[in-house]
Every structure is written in C-alpha cells, then in structure tokens.
C-alpha cells in the first residue's frame, strides 16, 4: 500500500496502447532492451471485429462438486494491460476458477474467454494465448533451467532453434541468464518462481495467470517477483490475473476482484472498492465486504 499512487497506473498504461502508432513505437523502444514481445491482438485488427477483446472475460460461471457449490455465478474481467488482483481467502474458489480457466475441467455454465476465444469451444486458440504460473512448483528439479524451458516450448509446438532464442530472452527478463545451465535444484525459491514466470512467457501469451505466486517467498524474492510481473504489465501490455490472499500486494492502480465463498463480492478499481466498503484501506474494505473479523492473512 505504500507504493506511490499511479506508479503502475492502469488507465495511464492503457492510453499508451490505444492504437496510435506513436504509442506503439514507444512501447517498442522499451522492448528493444529486452528483445521480447508479447503476443497480443493488434488493436486495429481487433477493432475490425468490433470491440477489442479483453485478456480474460469470465461471465456467469458456476461450478459445483457434488452438492458443494464452489463457484456461484462468477463474472470477472481482466482488460489488456491491467494488473488484476483476485483477492480471496483460502477456500474461496480461486483454485477452482484457475482450473476452469486452464481447462483442467470444463465450465458447465457461463463462458470463459481468453482474448476473445472461448476456452471450451476453441481450447487450442485460447490456451495458446495463456501463460500460467501454478501455485505448486512445476519445474523438473534435476534438469537445467534451459532444459526446463525447452520442454515448455515444445509443449507449445515451438521448434528448438526458435525455442533457444526465446528461452534466452525470457531468462533475460527475469535476470537469470547466467544460471541457464544450472539445475533447478540449485535455485532458491524466489529464483525458481522467476524461472516459472520466464517459462510462462515463452509462447508470448496475452494473459498471464499467477496462482499465489509469492507464497513461501521471503520479502526480497516477493518484491522481485511482483516487480517483474508488474513491469511486464506496464511494458508489454499483458493482462495479469494475480490470485492471492495477501492484501498488501494490492497497489492503488490495480483492479481488484474480491472472491469469497465462491461469490464475487466486488470487482473494480481500488478507489471503487474503498468507496463501496466506505473504508480507508483495502484491508478494512476486504473485512467489511467478506464480514470476516479475523485477519485475512494468517500467513
């Protein structure tokens, strides 16, 4: 919360990619340094189809396991170039929502669209635009960083020569180029997380999902992980859905979606959240909305 207001201002960033050629060149100048670009729909082309599609648009999704309703009519939007925090306690339904977005199983009701592509009807097109960092560790400990990245590129059908180039620039983004040939086992938790972010960027997604990405990291690693993701949002225009139960990860310019017991209690900007709960800070607002008296974050 101490972060300077507007530093990662969501509306400001959006202006810069409103389709004007100038804006794009500027973005390119920033990119030159890292030689990395993110797959995204050109605003011009997308507008030919009507409204440019949001990075992620979920509408009316409910899900139940047996009699237990885990998600109840959830709607949520992640615009392109927006850092959206999915805020919820453990058991709020975040993981189920992630399972549905990543199409581990299908949503039975409602629709989930990634950059305009319905996950159910066009899974390949949707998944091609999706990058995921799962909560649990998913790297092969005994393989090197580069081997892990090559495997992931292969999963996206990227051939080796191209994959090597992309692995190189992705590692550069997370500042781990010098460790490329070390085994993942030798990395710290924070470094491994950064490799997972690099891996999620290899196929140049337009939407990045991160599920409790900072759990178990020390303060320094947390800041570096959050910093990397936020700069990707600012520079590359990625839409990010950041699931967390740590309220202090919400910055003033973010969009917030409060998920509680399977229901979306609030969705919108931080000032909107504060106004809706007539609170002075996000933590109080969260308590007012969810009716929890205990501290939201035990961790």
């Amino acid at each position, binding site marked *: 919360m101490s972060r300077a207001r507007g530093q990662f201002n969501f509306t400001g960033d959006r202006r810069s990619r409103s389709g004007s050629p100038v804006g*794009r*060149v500027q*973005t*390119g*100048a920033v*990119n*030159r340094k890292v030689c990395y*670009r993110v*797959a*995204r*729909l*050109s605003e011009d*082309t*997308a507008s030919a189809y009507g409204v440019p599609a949001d990075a992620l648009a979920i509408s009316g999704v409910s899900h139940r*396991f047996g009699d237990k309703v*885990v998600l109840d009519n959830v709607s949520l939007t992640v615009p392109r170039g927006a850092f959206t925090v999915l805020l919820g306690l*453990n*058991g709020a*339904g975040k*993981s*189920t929502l992630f*399972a549905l977005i*990543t*199409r*581990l*199983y*299908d949503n039975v009701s409602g629709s989930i669209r990634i950059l305009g592509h319905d996950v*159910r009807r066009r*899974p*390949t*097109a*949707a*998944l*091609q*635009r*999706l990058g*995921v960092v*799962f*909560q*649990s*560790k*998913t790297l*092969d400990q*005994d*393989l090197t960083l580069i*081997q892990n990245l*090559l*495997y*992931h*590129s*292969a*999963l*996206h*059908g*990227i*051939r*080796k020569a191209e994959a090597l180039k992309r692995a190189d620039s992705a590692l550069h983004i997370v500042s781990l180029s010098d460790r490329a040939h070390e085994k993942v086992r030798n990395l710290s938790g924070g470094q491994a997380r950064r490799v997972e972010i690099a891996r999620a960027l290899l*196929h*140049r997604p*337009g939407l990045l999902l991160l599920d409790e990405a900072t759990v178990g990291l020390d303060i320094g690693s947390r800041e570096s992980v959050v910093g990397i993701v936020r700069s990707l949002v600012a520079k590359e225009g990625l839409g990010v859905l950041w699931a967390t139960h740590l309220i202090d990860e919400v910055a003033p310019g973010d969009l917030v979606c409060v998920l509680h017991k399977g229901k979306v209690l609030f969705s919108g900007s931080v000032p909107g959240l504060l106004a809706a709960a007539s609170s002075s800070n996000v933590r109080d607002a969260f308590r007012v909305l969810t009716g929890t008296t205990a501290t939201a974050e035990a961790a």
Partner: protein
Amino acid sequence: MNIEIAIHPMADVAPPKHGPGAYLACFRGIVWREVLRFLYQRERFLSALVRPLIWLFIFAAGFRQVLGVSIIPPYTTYVLYETFITPGLVGMILLFNAMQSSLSMVYDRETGAMRTLLVAPFPRSFLLISKLIGGVAVAILQAYTFLAIAYFWEIEPPLIGYLTVLPALILAGLMLGALALLMSSLIKQLENFAGVMNFVIFPMFFASSALYPLWRIKEGSPLLYEIARFNPFSHAVELIRFALYGQVGRTLEAGEEGAGAGISIDHGIVIPLQSGQLLDITHLVVVAGCTVLFLAAAIFAYNPSKGLIARRGGPAGGAM
C-alpha cells in the same frame, strides 16, 4: 526496430495453427523430457535394474531344481528356469515402469507438472499418448539393459530375437502404460499408491505366466489357472516370450493346443492355414485389444468435460 514492432502485432493476431511440425516438436519434447529425467536419476535407473536381476540371479537359481520346465513352445529344447523367467522379468520391468510413471503422474499432479502438460494447447489425447510413449521409451531402455546383462548369464535367445522383441516390448509397454495412466486418473492421492502395489502390481505379476508355465499352475490350482490365462499381463509376457524367439504368430500343428507355454484360450484367436495348421495370434490380439481399451478409458477419464477429474474435483489435491 520499429519495423519489427509494426509487423509483430499482426503476426500475433492468431498464433500459428499447429501443423505437423508443431505436433512433432511437442511429441519429441515430451518423450525427451521423460528420457532425460530418467537418465538424470541414476538411483532410479539402478533400482529398476536391480529388481529383475535379483529375481534372475537369486530367485531363479534357487528354484531351478524345484520347477521343472518341459519343452514347450517357443523353446525347442529343455531350458533352465532362468531362461524361462527372463521374458517374465522383462514384463516385470515394463509393469513396474508403467506403475512408476503412473505414480509420477499422481505426484506430478500434486506438484503441478501434470497441469503444465494438460494446459498445453494440443488435444489432450495427443498429450497423454505422447507422455505414455515417453514412459515406454524409458522402460524399453531398461529392458534392453537387462537383456544385455542376462546374456552374460547365459540366457541367449537368437540374435534376431533382440530385434523381433522390440515391437512386442512397445506394445506390451503401451498396454501397461495405458493401464497405469487410467489408474493415475482414478487415484486421488499419492498415499494410495501403496494400495496400487498390493492390489494391482503383485496380483498381476504373480497370477500370470511370468514365473511358472500355466500348465504347472493348472496342476496346482485350476482356479488360479483360469485367472492367469485371462490376465492381460500373462498375454503381455507370452507376447514378449514368443517375440524374443521370433515366434509370434506360431503355426500350430493340427490337434495341438494353443501355445503350450502360455495361454491360448484353448484355440483362442487362431487363423486357419492350409494343411490343417493354425496360426496362433492370441497374445498379440489380446494385448493390442487391451491397449486400445485401457487407453480409451484413460483418455475419457482425463476428458475435461466428462472425465472423472471433472466430476471429483481433482486432481490438484487441494483443488478448491
């Protein structure tokens, strides 16, 4: 630089549709990872090798005098017990490997590596089959290492057998792997794997023709005999046995029962030849049939809308 930027968003409007090249890259990547992981885990390689070697060096030596093995196809002379159980032990390697890869899939699921695989933008059946073939490739590496060591233990099938056994190993490996894949979707948690050991691996292995010819079992227990000859693993072992001696699709003389060492379901699946001979392809058909069956069930179980995972809310252990 600016030119590149101008071009790029256009190229990104739709990421390229996957052509055969992308499928190949994906397939190679998955198989390559399985093999690489296996090679890096040296303890796993050794323990996988030590198990059948203990059976061969110790168990078989001890039982050599107890179990007499008569001349039964595909053998043309009296064979030592070691020679008889070698194909069974190769089957054991495949079985353990398949179950281990199923274990690793449950484990992967809990750690999330399986989810990384399933979120790849390819048809899920393709991903699962690629993963399956990766596991089979690892198993076959082990099987050949074992056969090479056994060669110096004077288990010397005809040299051509080392070639003809390959398709049998692939098919048997696929069958067991598909079974394991199916089980990995059924097991909800890692702890249940001990149960798999007790209720799947051991019964499948011991109630089969891996350790003793079926006609010996029949003398001892007709019931066990019935179980063993319908056990798909028996057919996998017999397929490997006959293939190792280049005799898959052996012709039967008129009046001869189906393969004596094993288990034709008394003239199971045979193709009539001229001059009253029959061609016995029971094992091949049974193993191939089971492969298709298990694989279809596994793909169904992993199907995002119909499968068991969707219904039960797995697989991520704590999925909530």
